[in-house]
């Protein structure tokens, strides 16, 4: 039992160590061949551009730990951005109130996912596929597909475009949320129960963990974080459109899986997710600065994901093949 625990921890550590090496290698490589890559300004840009996907990936981590998935976060980002813009421009609400309303709407939408998944015991993949369509559809219906909200006041755009104490203004918020998720997953009983539920849902229930409530919590948190990401997104681009955050859910899932969290649930870490987000963001920025087509970054992200997955199972596959071979040999000898 003891050794088993240690090897699992070692494996997890090894995965993150490899990812860290990849990240450093990326940095050195692009620093060498890219123009202006790795300067302070460029680093701030990387941080700024990876903020929203980073937030979604952070919120996705506990969900995937419990063995679930949330395809609706990108659409919810779009819906919350639209609601926020609508309440501010047409509802004449002050920015902070509009932002709070958007966050409340995000929590409500996350609650809808949570209720369907935990109350009716429906598969998360399908429920969030439905809400993926529903949330984006509502955003399109509200804006009639073409209305765009712009001309936000400068005091609001500061959050997305300016620097505060020398770092991008959204960075402190991102760091605070990252610390919150790290503490939640790694230093509380909630985090333990997420892993237990992902590892063995029935076992967790028999162990007295209120599995439904804990799973519901992860989806509501994802709704809230999607709304926060929507506000930062709107502040960064200076506009809110119905297609905001299109496809972000896939980037977020990629970052989480790249970060070593098992898609089946049970194992994974928040710092792994952060490394995954960083690896993708640095790759994207580096490719652009190395004057290569940006599509290459997407291709390499996909390839990196396949490699990361294959490297996590290859040792197991090889050892099981070897075991089968020796078993066959043994059977032959006995015969």
């Amino acid at each position, binding site marked *: 039992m003891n050794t088993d625990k240690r090897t699992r921890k070692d494996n997890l550590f090894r995965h993150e160590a490899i990812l860290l090496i990849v990240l450093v290698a990326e940095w050195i490589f692009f620093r060498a061949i890219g123009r202006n890559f790795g300067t302070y300004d460029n680093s701030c840009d990387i941080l700024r551009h990876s903020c929203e996907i980073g937030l979604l990936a952070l919120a996705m981590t506990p969900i995937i730990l419990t063995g679930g*998935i949330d395809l609706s976060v990108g659409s919810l980002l779009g819906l919350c951005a639209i609601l926020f813009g609508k309440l501010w421009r047409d509802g004449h609400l002050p920015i902070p109130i509009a932002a709070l309303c958007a966050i409340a709407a995000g929590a409500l939408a996350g609650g809808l996912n949570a209720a*369907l998944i935990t109350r*009716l*015991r*429906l*598969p998360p*993949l*399908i*429920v969030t*596929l*439905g*809400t*993926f*369509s*529903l*949330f*984006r*559809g*509502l955003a*399109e*219906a509200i*804006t*009639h*597909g073409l209305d765009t909200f712009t001309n936000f006041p400068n005091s609001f755009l500061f959050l997305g475009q300016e620097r505060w104490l020398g770092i991008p203004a959204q960075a402190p918020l991102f760091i605070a949320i990252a610390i919150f998720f790290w503490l939640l997953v790694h230093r509380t009983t909630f985090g333990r129960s997420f892993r237990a539920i992902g590892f063995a849902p029935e076992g967790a229930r028999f162990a007295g963990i209120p599995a439904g409530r804990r799973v519901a919590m992860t989806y509501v948190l994802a709704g809230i974080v999607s709304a926060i990401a929507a506000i930062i997104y709107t502040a960064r681009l200076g506009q809110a459109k119905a297609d905001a955050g299109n496809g972000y859910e*896939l980037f977020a*899932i*990629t970052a989480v*899986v790249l970060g070593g969290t098992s*898609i*089946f649930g049970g194992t994974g870490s928040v710092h792994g997710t952060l490394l995954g987000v960083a690896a993708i963001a640095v790759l994207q920025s580096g490719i652009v600065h190395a004057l290569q*087509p940006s*599509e*290459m*970054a*997407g*291709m390499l*992200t*996909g*390839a990196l*994901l*396949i490699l990361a*997955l*294959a490297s996590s*199972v*290859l040792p197991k*596959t090889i050892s099981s093949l070897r075991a089968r071979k020796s078993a066959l040999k043994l059977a032959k000898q006995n015969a």
Partner: protein
Amino acid sequence: MKSYFRELSVAGALAILLLVLAIFAPSFYSPQPLLSLSAGAAGSLVVACGMALVIISRQIDISVGSMFAVCSVCAGLLAAMHWPLALVVAASIFIGAIFGAFNGTLVAGLGLPSIVVTLATMVTWREGLRWLRQGEFVNLPEGIQWFGLSQKSGQWALVIGALGILTLLAFMMKHFSIGRFIYAVGSDAEVARLSGIRPKLTTFLIFVLMGALVGLAAIMNIVQSPQVDPQSGTGLELKVIAAVVVGGVAISGGRGNLWGVFAGLLLLACISPALTHLHIEAYWEKAIQGSIILLAVVAEGLRNQKSSNHG
């Protein structure tokens, strides 16, 4: 009767929608637009059939949209090089099968989760295509559009072809051993293995078939216009998964049939024209599609709860 409850209720919903249209918007039933609608949905139907098999075997393939785009562009380029049509069709199916085999190798061979594998291949193929072609449209030569037939007979050919494939696959799932293997593997791969079925080989073959069907669907799509859009197939994966789920295939595998998928696809495909004919703003299409998916799973969930309470 009871075991086909899901399929019948989808068919019922479709019938109600068609009835509402017949009363309030009889213009929906003019033959030419209806034929165009069916021809437009023919490619999706072929992909949805493949996706149904994949989901019944308890896997998923979200790379179909990207494979569709790659096959479309490759077929377009070959047609532009004046290859004969039959060879273009064969090449497109072959290319699709190769991509499917790649997914199948990773999923069945290495035992990786299909959702992550196909997520990765989806991004890789799509970006690779964008990189190589820079979003350039491919102009098709004469004689490719509508297979060189008139528009009407071309559309009929597409509809009949898609229905033929649906019938063939539905028959295979019911009466051929490979069909029963797919249900068995989806219900419980370990039990299937112990009964002498090879789950890995079955899974691999399903992914190859999925790719081949996508290649065929790509052809069915490009013959409908004089150009090939390199962005085609974006979002196709979610569209067909929605049709499959609404059609009563259980996402946990082992349950469902292709006639339900057919009804589910028709229901979702009819929404957009129905909105136009009923004078509802078209912007609601996606929201209504999402609600239908949720309604279908909620109905299923409630039914399951009820039956588990009884038993």
